């Protein structure tokens, strides 16, 4: 099988000269087009490092990442990133934050009016049309993250990379954004890699969950398929046996087999 996105034998060692610390070792993962994959693991297991390698923001010391058989060696809009802390530019309005990305990606292929429409379309998709003239400091944390998602979607990426996109939000906001993301995902069918440490979020949103062992020298421990039909409803799944089973599998991996390093003391 020739995968859409292929992570092959990726390893990374920080400080290779002074005090080499292997962060990731031998990570192999193949992701099909349109698949939603979550990466879950305890803090410090190198989840974000792995995402940054796929994004091209970090270079692996071993192995490589291939997207449509092309080696990934630099960041680019075909692998748009939704950053954990939204990373909106505070001097640009909500609209201009998305528009900057649209201009950069489609500046040569689409006309002025078309780019304007596309910017509005993506802001509408995340439910932010009402605040396009506001500055990031004037909207809530959840709204900032929505704009961050709109910016990433507007790049029409081949792979959408999300680094704990809802980690900084309160539970209610998080649920609303998860629902919004699921809605978008049913229509767009993006290929997504999402980092999370929230078990429910992983099961609810993913087609597959990649579970990482603890660092240093972390690697993929297990991969779990989530055989739930799409167009999932949060409430329907509450009593679903498959859902409960998947959830249990992830919990057992995280807390029975790969307890966090400092958990023994607690």
């Amino acid at each position, binding site marked *: 099988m020739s995968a859409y996105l292929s992570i092959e034998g990726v390893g990374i060692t920080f400080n290779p000269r002074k005090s080499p610390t292997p962060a990731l070792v031998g990570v192999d993962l193949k992701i099909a087009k349109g698949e939603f994959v979550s990466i879950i693991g305890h803090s410090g297991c190198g989840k974000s490092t792995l995402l940054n390698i796929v994004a091209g923001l970090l270079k692996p010391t071993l192995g490589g990442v291939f997207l449509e058989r092309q080696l990934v060696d630099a960041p680019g*809009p075909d692998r748009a990133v939704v*950053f954990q802390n939204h990373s909106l530019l505070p*001097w640009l309005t909500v609209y201009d934050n998305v528009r*900057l990305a649209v201009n950069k990606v489609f500046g040569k292929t689409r006309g002025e009016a078309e780019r304007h429409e596309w910017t509005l379309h993506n802001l509408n998709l995340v439910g932010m049309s009402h605040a396009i003239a506001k*500055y990031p400091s004037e909207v809530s944390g959840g709204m900032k993250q929505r704009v961050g998602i709109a910016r990433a979607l507007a*790049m029409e990426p081949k792979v959408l990379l999300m680094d704990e996109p809802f980690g900084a939000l309160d539970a209610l906001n998080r649920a609303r954004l998860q629902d919004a993301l699921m809605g978008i995902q049913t229509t767009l069918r993006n290929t997504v890699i999402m980092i999370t440490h929230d078990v429910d979020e992983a099961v609810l949103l993913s087609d597959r969950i990649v579970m990482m062992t603890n660092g240093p020298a972390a690697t993929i421990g297990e991969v779990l398929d989530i055989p739930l039909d799409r167009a999932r409803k949060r409430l329907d799944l509450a009593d679903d046996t498959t859902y409960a089973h998947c959830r249990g599998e992830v919990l057992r991996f995280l807390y029975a087999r790969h307890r966090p390093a400092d958990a023994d003391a607690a």
Partner: protein
Amino acid sequence: MTSVPVDEPTNTSMSQTESPIAIAPSAASRLRERLFQVLPDIVLPVITLLVVLLVWHLIATNLGGGIPGIGETWERGVELLSDPFHSNGPNDMGIFWQVLYSLGRVMAGFTLAALVGVPVGFLMGSSAIFRKGWAPLIQILRPVSPLAWLPIGLLLFRAVDPSAIFVIFITSIWPIILNTSAGVVAIPNDYRNVAAVLRLNRIEMVRHILLPATLPHVLTGMRLSLGIAWMVIVAAEMLTGGIGIGFFVWDEWNNLNVSSIIVAIIIIGVVGIILDLGMNMIQRRFDHSQR
């Protein structure tokens, strides 16, 4: 009939005396409330002013020694400010022109410093090599009183005006360079990552990330510079002579017009405040972090 209409509680005299808050505040009471809020902002400075004036008065009447009285100074101030625009040749010009000449030198030196300092600050912030090469020199030169450069300026330019401007240039450039480079260094890594994902080229990077992210720091540096420059120009003009508020002070000292000097001190202070307020307005307009 004992039933009282529920939605008219303010009609009874009871509630009027017990809970005055429930009454819709009249215009007069609102004014009074507002007055009480701003009163400390006015009353306290006025008290301070009166104390200072009293001390001044005591010194002037008891110690003497040429310190002019309050009345004398006030008359001199009225005299100077009633005809600020007169111009009878270079040796007799109104206080407005004196201030304007000084401001002109400050602005010239400050603008030059900004033109040189901002790019140098950007270089220092973005290139470790440049920073390592230049930082020690700047660290040595920064604490030097800018007036020490005046002889060098006189030697270089053989004229007083460019020399004074040169001194202001030296004064202004250090805060601008240091704040600009600190601003570039402080750009969050997230913004760089955004730029990397968007594949911004060098020019786009400067325009969309570097300049707007650094602008608050640059403006802070400029505000500091301008404040110091206005202080230094008075001293520089005392040494160089010519037209200007600094030389005006020195000239009046030579004429033993101490009351004029006190008036000039107050004018210098007021102009300094106006300059700072101006920079503050610019900061509020352009600084995204103050929106």
